[in-house]
């Protein structure tokens, strides 16, 4: 609320004292003028296309051309095919696992950053966390092949140490590899979100808890954790949803077993099965919408990215 007031006051500045009613109304509309280009961009090139997928999911193709007859065949095919359904569920399970792990790793990390690192270093260290974003996403994924693969860094080191000998591969070309890489990819997202809220946390509350006889552990559990619930939800959403659409990581490190729903969709579209791909996309979008509705309270996090 407090933020609304100055905004309203400026609105008045621009309205000046020159207020005829019609003029004021016009000015009122004018204040939204800045939204117009963005509205066109998002409307035409984000919302309309998403709506299109929904439409397409009810059509079908015959010999690489679209047939516009409305039917549920794509959904039926999708739901009837064991591989698809299994892949879909697997993707959700993978998402949940990777998200929980990411958050579990990010929590103590952020706690350390906020509480044990001097303020002036925090920014730099945070910047270092996002630094990997500035390297090619693809190569970062591929790098894991060079680390975990048969001639990988890990194998080489273990061989040198005499722990193993010969070529070994670790986690690669299977679900665990995908899981590891997903955690690696999304850890910075979780850190950014959690850091933003931990940084704002009133640590006096922790001291108050200590003062009232709570041991450090209980103080964290009883006072910090409950209040982090919202931002944990936010972080989870911001990690989980993109994971649902991942297809490059599984493609590079997943082998035939690590396939996720994103690969299916990418494949359908590559094979011009637009309606089937659309149907799969709609199912993913459905999950996302449900999540967004459930967690709508934890979504206003513009400042996360701003930081």
């Amino acid at each position, binding site marked *: 609320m407090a933020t609304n007031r100055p905004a309203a006051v400026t609105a008045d500045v621009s309205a000046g004292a020159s207020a005829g009613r019609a003029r004021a109304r016009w000015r009122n509309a004018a204040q939204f003028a800045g*939204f117009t280009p963005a509205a066109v*961009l998002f409307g035409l*090139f984000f919302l309309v296309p998403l709506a299109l997928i929904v439409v397409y999911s009810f059509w079908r193709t015959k010999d690489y051309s679209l047939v516009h007859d409305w039917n549920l065949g794509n959904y039926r095919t999708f739901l009837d095919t064991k591989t698809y359904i299994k892949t879909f569920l697997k993707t959700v399970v993978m998402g949940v696992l990777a998200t929980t792990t990411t958050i579990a790793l990010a929590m*103590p990390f952020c*706690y350390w950053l906020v509480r*044990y690192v001097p303020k002036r270093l925090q920014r730099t260290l945070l910047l270092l966390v996002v630094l990997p974003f500035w*390297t*090619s996403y693809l190569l970062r994924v*591929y790098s894991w092949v060079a680390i975990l693969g048969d001639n990988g860094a890990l194998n080489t080191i273990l061989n040198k140490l005499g722990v193993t000998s010969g070529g070994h591969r670790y986690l690669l070309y299977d679900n665990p590899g995908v899981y590891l890489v997903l955690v690696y990819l999304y850890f910075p997202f979780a850190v950014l979100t959690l850091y933003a809220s931990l940084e704002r946390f009133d640590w006096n509350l922790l001291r108050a808890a200590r003062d009232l006889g709570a041991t*450090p552990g209980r103080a964290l559990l009883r006072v910090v954790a409950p209040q982090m619930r919202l931002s944990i939800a936010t972080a989870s959403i911001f990690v989980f949803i993109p994971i649902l659409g991942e297809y490059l990581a599984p493609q590079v490190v997943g082998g035939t077993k690590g396939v996720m729903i994103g690969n299916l969709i990418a494949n359908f579209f590559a094979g011009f099965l637009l309606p089937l791909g659309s149907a799969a996309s709609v199912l993913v979008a459905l999950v996302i919408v449900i999540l967004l509705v459930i967690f709508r309270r934890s979504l206003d996090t513009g400042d996360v990215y701003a930081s």
Partner: protein
Amino acid sequence: MPRDADIVAPHGRLVRGLLTLYGVAMYLFLFVPIVVLVLLSFNTSRTVGFPLKHLTLAWYRLLPDDVLIQDALSSSIRIGLWVTAISTVIGTAAAFPLVRARVRYRSVVRVLITLPIMIPGLLIGVSLLILFTDVLKVQPGSSTAIVGQSVLVTPFVILIVAARLQGFDQNLERAASDLGANLVQRMRYVVLPLIAPGILAAALIALTLSIDEFIVTNFLIGSGQTLPIYIYNQIKFGITPEVNALASLMLLGTMLVFALGFAIPPLVRRVRLRRAVVAD
């Protein structure tokens, strides 16, 4: 506020040590792949893998001759600049009403704006592909890729500029108005100079996001290539350390850009100050 470690605590040092160790471990986790990436760019072996045989700069020497890379680089930069321009203008324009107008459902609008960031790029890519090829009958190419990337990148610009604007003391604008400045003068002399660092940061981020974007671009670029697509093809069709060399250079490049981005504003301030002192 005293830090936690300051609290009288018998195990304080231990906890601090363990947490610090953990923090360092996480940084290792984050940076080992990048280090490996860079290391392999110096490896003599043609195939990407360990152990490192000998160190060489050969892969870097190949770069200037590779037409594919040059093509990809120039189209990446071209697309990147377009996307930066478009998203910075549109995003900055949108940030103003987002922060300042009497928006009824401000948080809903905010969520709408974050959606393109959250929704998997795959969905955006395929849906835009359908729109362009099937509905608008536009041939995929650089321009469609620019549109697609702009959808992805603009939300970041909006959020960054909005954050800056949020911190902007509105009284400054009122003061300017009070001192006789009209709307245009207020923008020109007060608002824009003050949020410029935010806009600059947003533009830099837009540029780096665009240059690294793969998913949407891959769907929309048609016959074109950008660096990530080149890299993807390399990964798909037989990678050599040449790509690592390329990536290492790119990493160096982005770091330089950002270092400049961080260093320039304080520098400008200092120069301005010195000039003011001298002028006196």
